[in-house]
């Protein structure tokens, strides 16, 4: 058996295979639910209801999707250049730290909008700087960025742990390891008063549009795609490959950091170690499911967030652990990767 490339995959193939991947996910997910001793159909219904069954549920899903849009975009941008940024988690926390530092500083005297902008810029720059190191090591010395960005996640988490236990610990926090709260002027307001959806979500949509425009309309986007597809040809044509990788890293790191900014300024209001339940890693799944398309990232982020929120709510109603959400996502990702592969190659004998 070997793989044979398909030159021009048919539209039917492009639609049928992802659909089959989704069906396979549901079937295997149902078997897991059965194993947990519940009714798969009812459970599936509960997940959907929990994710989108009410205005409250839907807004909760969109709130959860917000950081995933940013980390998903960060990954999608980097992966497009074949820059394997596995460190969105570290960049997210970097952004969160700067958001809290500026949001709790003397600058709080600033009016709300400049203050929020300053926080966002500082957060994005921090994230960009965090990814700059690995990319320079990669372009200069050929150090594998998968390793460096991944390891930076743990370094960053430990650093945050130090900050919230030490210099940034809230003196009024009853001993909990968390930072001071942001000033009210430094909080992202709700989009509609009374509903729990903050402007971070809108910012995510704007970011997705901007990334899409960069990728399709600018010379940088063209360079990023060229470098990702074929660095040798890009170099031969005169594209400054290393510079493009650096720019890609700055964009990617900045986007991931905005996830931290949006979570702190929009939702939590302070820095703590449970700020991100792995949004950086889930961003990889989001980006892969979206086939690295920036607008697709929005949809897949909402889908992924829906599964998490729905599974949370389902586990309260049925007696199935919330871990089913992680398993469903993992299964969906594996099947989707297989479906993507099979749209471009077919298995032949001999």
């Amino acid at each position, binding site marked *: 058996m070997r793989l044979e490339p398909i030159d021009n995959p048919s539209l039917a193939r492009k639609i049928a295979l992802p659909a089959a991947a989704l069906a396979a996910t549901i079937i295997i997910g149902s078997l897991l639910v059965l194993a947990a001793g519940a009714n798969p159909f009812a459970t599936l219904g509960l997940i959907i209801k929990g994710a989108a069954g009410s205005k409250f549920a839907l807004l909760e899903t969109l709130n959860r999707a917000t950081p995933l849009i940013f980390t998903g975009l960060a990954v999608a941008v980097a992966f497009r250049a074949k820059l394997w940024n596995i460190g969105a988690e570290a960049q997210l926390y970097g952004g969160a730290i700067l958001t809290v530092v500026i949001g709790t500083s003397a600058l709080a005297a600033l009016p709300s909008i400049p203050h929020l902008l300053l926080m966002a810029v500082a957060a994005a720059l921090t994230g960009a700087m965090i990814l700059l190191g690995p990319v320079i090591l990669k372009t200069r010395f050929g150090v594998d960025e998968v390793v460096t960005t991944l390891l930076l996640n743990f370094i960053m988490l430990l650093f945050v742990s130090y900050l919230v236990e030490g210099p940034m610990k809230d003196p009024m926090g009853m001993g909990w390891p968390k930072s001071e709260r942001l000033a009210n002027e430094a909080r992202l307001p709700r989009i509609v008063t009374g509903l729990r959806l903050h402007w971070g979500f809108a910012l995510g949509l704007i970011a997705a549009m901007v990334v899409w425009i960069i990728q399709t309309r600018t010379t940088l986007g*063209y360079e990023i795609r060229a470098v990702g597809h074929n660095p040798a040809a890009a170099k031969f044509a005169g594209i400054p490959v290393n510079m493009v990788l650096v720019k890609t890293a700055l964009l990617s790191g900045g986007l991931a950091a905005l996830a931290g900014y949006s979570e702190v300024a929009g939702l939590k209001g302070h820095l703590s170690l449970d700020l991100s339940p792995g949004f950086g890693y889930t961003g990889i799944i989001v980006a892969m499911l979206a086939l690295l398309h920036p607008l697709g990232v929005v949809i897949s982020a909402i889908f992924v967030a829906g599964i998490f929120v729905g599974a949370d709510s389902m586990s309260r109603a049925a007696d199935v652990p919330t871990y089913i959400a992680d398993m469903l996502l993992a299964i969906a990702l594996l099947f989707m990767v297989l479906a993507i592969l099979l749209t471009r190659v077919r298995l032949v004998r001999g």
Partner: protein
Amino acid sequence: MTLEVVLRLAGITKTFGDLVANSGIDLTLHKGEVIALLGENGAGKTTLMNILFGHYVADAGTVEAFGAPLPQGNPRAALEAGIGMVHQHFTLAENLTVAENISLGTSSLWSGRLRLGQSKKRIRQLAEDFGLLVDVDAKVGNLTVGEKQRVEILKALYRDARILILDEPTAVLTPQETDALFETLHKAVAMGLSIVFISHKLHEVMAIADRCLVLRHGALVGEVETKNTSREALAEMMVGNKVEPPEVAPIQVGATLLELRHVSTPDMGTAPGLQDVSLSLKAGQITGLAGVSGNGQAALSDLICGLGLPEQGQLVLDETVQNRWNPRDAVQSGIARIPEDRHHTGTIADFDLSENAILETYQKPPMSKRGWMNWSQAKAFTESIIATYDVRCPGASTKIRLLSGGNMQKLILGRVLEGNPKIILANQPVRGLDIGAITYVHNQLLAARASGAAILLISEDLDEILRLSDVIHVISEGKLSPEFPRGTKTPAELGLWMAGQGFEGEDNCAA
């Protein structure tokens, strides 16, 4: 000859797309015989051996080993039939020892433990019998190239090979190692093994082979006993002697547009870099660079394409020494670059025609302005190339990997020739193309010459060089021969230069 026939290939034909790699090739090998398979790069030698060894399946033809038909596309069957192949590029695991590499794959996956003791004993015995000195416990990664090759040969012998196929075995060896290899081969033949020796080095073929088979453009063009032939005759057969009278009108040669002055560059892997090369490209003149592949052509091409500055010497453009030199500088200095590998360096497979057409010019108007792409300009430019250069394709938004080699090359031609370049570097511009596309590319180059471009044509096909070039250089081991004006050297004479003769100075005259 009445000896036992151990291997018989009949009517082997193999095509890759438009390219006919092998057409109707017959070959017989007798017991205890060494035959040489001779031909230029791309003549189809390696393809033929890969068919024999089961890496490729032939479109037509049969393979018989020791009288029994050999199923195709099955390397294991070839191994079991007693055929051992030593590839040009070694297939060894660097982190394992010699003994581990040799015994790899010879015991069942389920046997659970390795019986390396017995293996080592047998390997040492084989090494002694065949004069293949190597430490069985050494890590392969630490061995020299010559030693690695001995391991490859031992690997084949360990599997009881009765027929050894050596694909360009001396390409990576020093002369001393080559002598040692030949001794081994003599011993092997004395023990009744048969050998197919693939090479394009004439003196080696003369030294080792009993019989020579010459391939050109995928077809068998000659078969001679070594004792009844000469190097010159083989060279002529190999490169072909059907040079048509130049259809090229003489033209006034203009100023020197690009000059290399005593340039040396670092080696590139196993291929040599340039060694004290001086070269001038003049307006209205095609300079042909002949040579066997891997003799410094890549280094020269990379240098002119802007992928590096010389380690020593100068690159001079319009009488200005270049101190900063990158691909973009080269493009902006008016150098049209047709790269050797149009699939991997010349184009981006998953980009469409428009995106590929603007690869070298996307960063400035009219293709983009202040960082914003102007896709309608790109599309219009691409459509004009498609029309002018007759690129057969569904449209400008077709992915370029769906195009045939010839159409891909036409797009590259359009991309680089549209700006009326002063200098053209064409590295193997027609490799793998069909006759129609070859003629088209050649006519484009001649048209550029007529309009005053200075052209460097790098090719391993001597016919092509002889047909197009006003002056010819031969490159060998990174050194450049003197300049030979059109018609002053026969193919056989150039063939000898290509084989590395003449560079030492004894017959070093231009005319």
